[in-house]
């Protein structure tokens, strides 16, 4: 069964402003409607997720005077997955005087995304990046500083300037604690109602507009509705569809998927980022993968033996018999080549039989030269906590022997399709942060997710939400409206279906099987035959899941197996759409590498004539079973020239 393809569609009005690129955001802001300060308290905004995107949005909206409710899965908003980001956040401050500018950050991001993102969005992101750093410093975020007391920077992949701000190896933690403290200030002032350990399980539409959510209280199992005037999904990415990823265990697609099933179009689901520097899998018990920050590639050199099957210890392999393949293939970016390119290169050398370690599925990240140059103390000062983390997990000392690393699923560029206002195709439903598809095209540059999450929450949605609140006539809606009872009922039925399956296999065992299949067929490299097989297998497995899953206990208590089971059920549906998207995109771009479409040198071969669009999938509600229609949003490049992406 193939998907309907619908051409450039009115369904997808991007609402991008026109005119000179650098003026667009200003112009748009001026043209946006406003809600006057006195009227704001009449509007209730439901913010789902309290990571960087959600916490910053909730705090900013409450400061402006809106009534806000904030929801998250964890016991505290401070524990959102954003907390785990290590390396840094980009901003076009040009504090290093090395030629950075808003334009350069814009250009690097567009190019890094392999020319598959909107110019208008990316330029806005680069513009507000500078305000983010100001805001965070004002909150007391303890960024790294130089002896003169001014802010320090480091370099990240895909850039030739130092524009990354950082707080040791805990940048995400410090940024999130900043946003969390702003959020908690508003909670303390009674402007935000906080609902931790609440999982959104559905979206409620009234007259086609997003007017509420249905949540399950994870402690007592109660299913309850919340009504509001707008819903903000800030629920993060779906990398855990692969089971093993660098994401926190609770990361999931459920909120976004439920919105999709209510009509929100899903953008570029197949664009997945595989991060090149993660600790390799050690055994079947593995529950997640640990990232080694990209910042390590500032000093570590990536290599494998020149000859296949070379089983000598790293230190016994002489210099001439080592292949520093990134430096060889991409001399101008070398070890700091972008993630998709570095990951693929690692896969290539391992496929050639040149991988290292017991599994041969790893490459070396070697600090020998840096330690000689700066001493172990110098390296410890920069990366001490990362080295310690590596040693704890592997039991090996990276000061003595090189680290072994391998690519792992890390980030999803795809997500709910949104227009320039960050509004989905469901009016009143806004999507922020990793959960949307907006700014990174087919590949995200390092240190740009934190930037985007905070841009969306601090500096975009607080303005654009007014287009909805002031622009539409919103009648008063409470949870007494029939739509709430109906949606709640559907949620309860889905829960009961899972609990009553009383089968033989755990949700986790199904999740692992799905993950392996996705990694195999829809991971770092994909081909049409493999994707076809994957779709068949996913459908079989999904059917088996609903028949044979086993969830002990009941739904009226804290039930971790049930929570997981609901998320796995949604991953099963998303997985199929990811494969369909990957199958339809007959080109290679960024994180999407189709083996049939590569240059003679094995680089990604884009097809701009046929695929220069965002692929946005709409659920076909009339179909029996899962089916989708594809809409295309053409990407128009007026300011940059579409070019082969070269880092040579």
């Amino acid at each position: 069964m193939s998907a309907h393809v619908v051409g450039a569609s009115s369904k997808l009005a991007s609402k991008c402003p026109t005119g000179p690129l650098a003026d667009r955001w200003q112009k748009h802001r001026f043209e946006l409607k406003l809600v006057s300060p006195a009227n704001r308290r009449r509007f209730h905004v439901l913010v789902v997720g309290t990571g960087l995107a959600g916490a910053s949005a909730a705090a900013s909206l409450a400061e402006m005077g809106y009534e806000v409710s904030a929801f998250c899965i964890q016991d505290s908003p401070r524990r959102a997955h954003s907390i785990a980001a290590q390396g840094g956040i980009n901003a076009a401050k040009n504090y290093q005087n090395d030629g950075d500018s808003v334009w350069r950050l814009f250009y690097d991001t567009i190019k890094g995304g392999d020319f598959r993102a909107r110019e208008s969005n990316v330029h806005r992101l680069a513009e507000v990046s500078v305000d983010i750093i100001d805001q965070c410093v004002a909150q007391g975020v303890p960024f790294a500083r130089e002896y003169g007391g001014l802010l320090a920077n480091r370099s990240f992949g895909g850039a030739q300037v130092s524009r990354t701000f950082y707080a040791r190896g805990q940048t995400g933690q410090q940024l999130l604690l900043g946003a969390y403290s702003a959020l908690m200030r508003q909670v303390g002032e009674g402007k935000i109602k906080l609902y931790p350990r609440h999982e959104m399980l559905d979206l409620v539409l009234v007259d086609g507009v997003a007017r509420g959510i249905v949540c399950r209280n994870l402690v007592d199992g109660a299913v309850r509705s919340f009504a509001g005037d707008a819903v903000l999904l800030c629920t993060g990415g779906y990398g855990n569809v692969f089971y093993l990823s660098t994401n926190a265990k609770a990361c999931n697609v459920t909120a976004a998927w439920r919105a999709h099933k209510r009509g929100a179009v899903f953008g570029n689901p197949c664009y997945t980022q595989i991060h090149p520097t993660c600790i390799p899998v050690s055994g079947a018990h593995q529950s997640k993968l640990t990232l080694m920050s990209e910042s390590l590639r500032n000093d570590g050199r990536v290599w494998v033996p020149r000859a296949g099957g070379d089983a000598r210890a790293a230190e016994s392999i002489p210099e001439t018999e080592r292949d520093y393949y990134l430096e060889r293939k991409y001399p101008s970016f070398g070890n700091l080549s972008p993630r998709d390119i570095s990951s693929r290169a690692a896969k290539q050398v391992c496929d050639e039989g040149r991988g290292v370690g017991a599994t041969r599925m790893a490459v070396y990240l070697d600090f020998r030269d840096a330690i000689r140059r700066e001493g172990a103390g110098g390296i410890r000062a920069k990366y001490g906590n990362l080295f310690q983390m590596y040693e704890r997990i592997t039991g090996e000392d990276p000061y003595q022997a090189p680290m072994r690393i391998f690519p792992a699923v890390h980030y999803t560029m795809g997500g709910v399709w949104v227009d320039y206002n960050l509004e989905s195709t469901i009016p009143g439903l806004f999507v922020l942060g990793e959960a949307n598809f907006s700014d990174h095209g087919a590949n995200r540059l390092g240190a740009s997710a934190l930037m985007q999450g905070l841009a969306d929450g601090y500096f975009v949605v607080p303005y654009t939400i007014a287009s909805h609140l002031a622009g539409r006539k919103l009648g008063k809606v409470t949870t007494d409206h029939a739509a709430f009872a109906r949606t709640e009922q559907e949620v309860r039925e889905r829960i009961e279906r899972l609990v009553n399956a009383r089968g033989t296999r755990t949700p986790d065992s199904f999740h692992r099987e799905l993950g392996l299949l996705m990694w195999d067929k829809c991971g770092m490299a994909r081909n049409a035959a493999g994707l076809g097989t994957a779709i068949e297998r996913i459908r079989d497995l999904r059917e088996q899941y609903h028949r044979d899953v086993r969830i002990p206990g009941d739904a009226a208590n804290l039930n971790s197996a049930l929570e997981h089971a609901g998320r796995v059920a949604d991953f099963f549906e998303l997985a199929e759409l990811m494969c369909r998207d990957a199958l339809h995109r007959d080109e290679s771009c960024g994180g999407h590498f189709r083996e049939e479409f590569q240059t003679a040198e094995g680089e990604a071969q884009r097809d701009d004539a046929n695929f220069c669009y965002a692929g946005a999938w709409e659920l076909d509600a009339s179909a029996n079973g899962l089916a989708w229609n594809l809409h295309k949003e053409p990407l128009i490049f007026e300011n940059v020239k579409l070019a082969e992406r070269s880092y040579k």
Partner: protein
Amino acid sequence: MSSDHAAHAPSSAPNAPHALRFVLHVWRQKNAQSTGEFATFHLDDVSPDMSFLEMLDVLNERLIAAGDDPIAFDHDCREGICGACSLTINGQPHGFERETTTCQTHMRRFEDGATLYIEPFRANAFPIVKDLVVDRSAFDRIIAAGGFVSARTGSAPDANALPVPKGDADRAMDAAACIGCGACVASCKNASAMLFVSAKVAHLSLLPQGQAERGRRVLSMVERMDAEGFGNCTNESECEAACPKGISVANIARLNREYLRALATES
């Protein structure tokens, strides 16, 4: 009454020859209202490469397959940064390994054949939710009371307008590294939250941005801390030893100074 589950499921350890054996006594408690008790489990095929939580995962898979309720425990990042994991292992919050969260503890660090008692973080201010899961929302309420700089979005000056001496910035970062896990409270015989509160007070009072609210902040946070039912600090320093992030008790001395200073200056 305690249940005894012998683990006869097939080995999931990849390197079975080196598999470790453990006897686990795990705290089981249905919910906040019920009383709890230890349940005993024998594991004989634990890979040394497993993390502590991966060992519990394997046990839970077997429990679910057998139709039993899996052991509930909080966890998320499994990288030692989110502060969710909160197990007391043989009487020590996060176990014996210094500056290491439970999720970062690997089974190769334990002796083969060891008996492990696994309990929740215990404190009056952290009521048990289920099994090993506790309610630490008191920490959030302390932050809401004053653990912030009031900097409304959009009102910030240029980030480099205000240089911060590197030493101050580094010390602020040392304190800001707190992950809010609550091990300090669980390790303290008085269940005091002084280390947690002092880390935030120190972080913000060391920075120029934190000066305007310096006095108000410490007074409100301490008031909230007391109201939440945390105990007093009697300088046992157990908290520092248990802290997975190595937050120093020197912060508590700073908190005390800040508090006295605030009492003198704020009225």
